[in-house]
């Protein structure tokens, strides 16, 4: 059974149709990369997966549990799904360390000292030395902030990680340090859904590439299939514009 199954997902904001029937499955340990033009529904799809945006129609099934069903404890479910945002969204009034320990303490009820140990462990994992623990977000570079955000999500010990254009707001020279962390994570077997414009990453790290446009999945396949011999004209057009 797949870890995540999305069935006929629709999302509408008023008159604006953002998702028009998305179906996909993600196996445990798989790295799925979603590419496509802006406004194609990629980010909304990620926000639907952890129910930050409740779907208008359709089902999100995580590990056999339908998240769209009534009575599901979404706060419990969201602990199993980590998400990293384009704008980092670190808590700006807290230090790097506190950003990681806050959810551990109040959501997982882990005592302060233990939470701090976990936080330091994950800061190291994303390549940040202990000295950065006491820094506030605005004292960190974009790449460092994004790595703290990844550490914060990982510290919750999720089964699925969602990455929403996490390098799009970074200076070009900071992109690599974040991608390296994600690549490492993929190698360790984390199940990941990555929305990105980094085609090099999609090609090298992705197990499968999905091309989304107009709120639907236009084409999907192995990275080399998509990048070397895309079948759909829309995919071809998009790739010719960016490659």
């Amino acid at each position: 059974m797949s870890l995540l199954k999305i069935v006929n997902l629709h999302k509408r904001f008023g008159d604006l149709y953002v998702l028009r029937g998305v179906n996909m499955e993600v196996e445990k340990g798989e790295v799925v990369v979603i590419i496509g033009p802006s406004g194609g529904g990629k980010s909304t799809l990620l926000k639907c997966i952890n129910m930050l945006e409740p779907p208008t129609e359709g089902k999100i099934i995580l590990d056999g549990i339908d998240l769209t069903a009534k009575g599901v404890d979404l706060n419990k479910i969201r602990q199993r799904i980590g998400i990293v945002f384009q704008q980092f969204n670190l808590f700006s009034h807290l230090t790097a360390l506190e950003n990681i320990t806050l959810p551990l303490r109040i959501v997982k009820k882990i005592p302060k000292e233990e939470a701090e140990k976990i936080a330091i462990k994950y800061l190291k994992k994303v390549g940040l030395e202990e000295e950065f623990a006491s820094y506030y977000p605005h004292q960190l570079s974009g790449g460092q902030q994004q790595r703290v955000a990844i550490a914060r999500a990982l510290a919750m010990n999720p089964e699925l990680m969602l990455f929403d254009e996490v390098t799009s707001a970074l200076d070009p020279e900071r992109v690599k340090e974040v991608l390296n962390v994600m690549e490492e994570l993929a190698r360790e077997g984390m199940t990941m859904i990555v929305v990105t414009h980094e085609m090099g990453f999609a090609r090298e790290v992705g197990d499968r590439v999905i091309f989304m446009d107009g709120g639907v999945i236009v084409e999907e396949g192995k990275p080399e299939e998509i990048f070397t011999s895309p079948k759909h004209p829309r995919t071809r057009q998009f790739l010719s514009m960016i490659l």
Partner: protein
Amino acid sequence: MAGIGQFDFNLFIKILPDLARGAIVTLKFSSLSIIFGLIIGTIFGVCRIVKNLILPKIATAYVELIRGTPLLVQIMIVYYGLPAAGINLPPEVAGVLALSINSGAYIAEIIRAGIQSVPKGQMDAARSLGMTYFQAMRYVVLPQAFRNILPALGNEFIALIKDSSLLSVIAIAELTRTGMQIYAVTFNAWTPLLGVAMFYLMMTLPLSKLVDHFQRRIGGHESP
């Protein structure tokens, strides 16, 4: 005895302790009221923005009602009006109650603006980590909102110190009433009233400085 329009320095020195006592009463009433106002304001400020059919309407009605009527009338309703409904309050309680309800409405608006000044991504991030709406508000959104609205809250406190002079109408011996009483006894208006004004400034000026400091800190993106 000096004439009504003359400043009498000897009298001024003599009444300083009385005025100081009045100023302390003013500070007590303003401080208590800002604390209760903050509690009321936070509750109603959050109510104004929650996704609910009734709560925002109740909160909006409260804010409009209070902001649309004079504080003096509100004080008199609480002190003279409530007894008609069988609720007798000592002037001190009525005073704090009226000021708290009044400042609560203004603070509710400040809090609402403060919450809306926190980027939506902060709530998204908090919820995505498994926090409940309440936890996200309590630990993530409100602390940042409060930091952003400290200058506005400081200004509200300054306004409250000045507005508390209206409590003189219900016989609370705060600063203004103390000055009026001295005038009634000495028939000298300048001396006590200048003294009263001076004491108000002594309370409000340092607060203004503090507000400026907070404002600069927010502008400068310093750590809290």
